[in-house]
């Protein structure tokens, strides 16, 4: 059984981390960092799926490589690049490889990435992908036999199905309605977009109190004040309060990492009573993850 499912079921505070596959075949540095800094700190590690539409190595083999190193992966799957046949096919492949945790996402728009003329697929959306997983678990798929009957699978997968939500988005009601749909379609855990405003997160958690699935708050390490400002300007659903921007701006260049880790640790400390865990997205600063967890005072 998925350790993530088990940990969230127990009700303690659960940490997950994240790595991004390389652009190229040189997988060693990513695997090294995962083993060195994530393995003993987090319950599971998300492997991103062509994030921000910038072409990279596929998530699935990297998940398998983590598994082989005793690290539990969360397979991220976006619906931007594959139609319903390919998505279901990869899901069966993941199950055969022993990958149980799958996070369903719409995926950033093609024009955010480095292949802007590519065709965006979105044959399914994130709700449709969760529904597809639920169907596969019930022993059938999205298709039909020649007689118009559901197809029967030879061997049935089990998934621990995740979804995302942006708690600090401008208009939160449509996000909540969609979250309800994701849960209705089978989502069993939630990892959020980056949150920097504990009060806004608290208000959001109250509004989704009726949604009975564990929520891991998203923590993105801010590498400097410029990154915080960039996110405020360009990343929908993310708001970094001025006090955090100022704190990063005031830090000496040599201390920025330390301040960044402190900020992340404090955010987790403030929000740990509101949710089931934290999903830390280090964006390359993998080696800071142990320090963030230490700073949060959870362990």
């Amino acid at each position, binding site marked *: 059984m998925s350790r993530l499912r088990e940990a969230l079921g127990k009700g303690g505070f659960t940490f997950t981390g994240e790595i991004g596959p390389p652009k190229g075949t040189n997988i060693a540095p990513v695997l090294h960092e995962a083993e060195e800094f994530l393995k003993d700190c987090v319950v599971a590690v998300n492997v991103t799926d062509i994030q921000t539409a910038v072409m990279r190595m596929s998530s699935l083999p990297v998940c398998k490589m983590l598994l082989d190193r005793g690290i539990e992966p969360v397979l991220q799957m976006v619906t*931007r690049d594959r139609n*319903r046949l390919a998505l279901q096919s990869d899901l069966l492949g993941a199950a055969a490889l022993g990958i149980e945790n799958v996070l369903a996402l*719409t995926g*950033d*728009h093609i*024009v*955010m990435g480095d292949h802007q003329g590519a065709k*965006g697929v*979105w*044959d*399914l*959306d*994130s*709700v*449709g992908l969760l*529904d597809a997983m639920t169907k596969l678990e019930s022993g059938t798929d*999205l298709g039909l036999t020649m007689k118009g009957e559901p197809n029967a699978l030879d061997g049935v997968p089990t998934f621990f199905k995740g979804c*995302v*939500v*942006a708690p600090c*988005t*401008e*208009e939160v*009601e*449509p*996000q909540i*309605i*969609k979250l*309800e*749909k994701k849960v*209705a*379609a089978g989502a069993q855990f939630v990892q959020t*977009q980056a949150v920097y405003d504990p009060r806004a997160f608290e208000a959001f958690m109250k509004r989704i109190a009726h949604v009975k699935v564990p929520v891991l708050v998203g923590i993105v390490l801010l590498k400097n004040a410029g990154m915080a400002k960039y996110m405020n300007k*360009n990343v*929908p*659903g993310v708001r970094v309060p001025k006090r955090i921007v100022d704190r990063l701006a005031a830090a000496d260049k040599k201390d920025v990492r330390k301040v960044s880790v402190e900020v992340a640790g404090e955010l987790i400390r403030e929000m740990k009573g509101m949710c089931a865990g934290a999903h830390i997205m280090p964006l390359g600063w993998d080696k800071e993850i142990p320090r963030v967890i230490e700073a949060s005072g959870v362990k």
Partner: protein
Amino acid sequence: MIVTEMKPVDEILGMIEGEKGVFILCCGGCPEGYKSGGLSKGKDLAEAVGAKGVTVTGVAEIEFLCNKALAGVKLNRSREALRGADSILVVSCGVGVQAVGNVADFPVHPAMNTVSMGGRQGLWPGEERCHQCGDCLLDRTGGLCPITTCSKSLVNGTCGGTKEEHCEVDPKRPCGWLKIYQRLAALGRAECLKALNAPRDHRKYDFPDARRSTVLWALEVAAEETEEAVEASRGTDT
């Protein structure tokens, strides 16, 4: 000419379930010329849904619903019938349904699927766009098309990429799903958003060779096929 076809009556009944009264508005443009719609088909529809216990407060035809200014003025003439209606059932292509939704402060339901633009539509001065997907879901989206307004053509709601009410990939493009949410909330029908929409059936995008063969196909067929039907439809219009 835009090629349209009536949705099955059962699907239409599903859309208007629970409505106290429904006003049927027919486009007198392409659907009339193509004989897929028009006033006579609107009256047939009124009879069919009336037989299932739905109150139809009126049936009217306006030429080229895609001409929003004209449609708005002419729709005003039916205000008595509209007063008793909860919603408008629009017998037109997806552009017409969206145009009516934009000029009338009413929930709209599409009575037709739009199969193909088949060349050039009558008039289209507005921002409404129809993707000719052949499986119109405007009923669940407040009369705003998510296939054409959402940059990802999502069917189950916002992706989270809304920035200052616009799409993150284009600051000049309003977020389609936010507009849909706002329209439905204003109409008191935000619960429509909670329905799970199935993945699209892409077969419906395609249409038979006969239809694809020529731009003028619809007109040619209209000229050859059904002189009697044309007469008959004129007879029932008066």
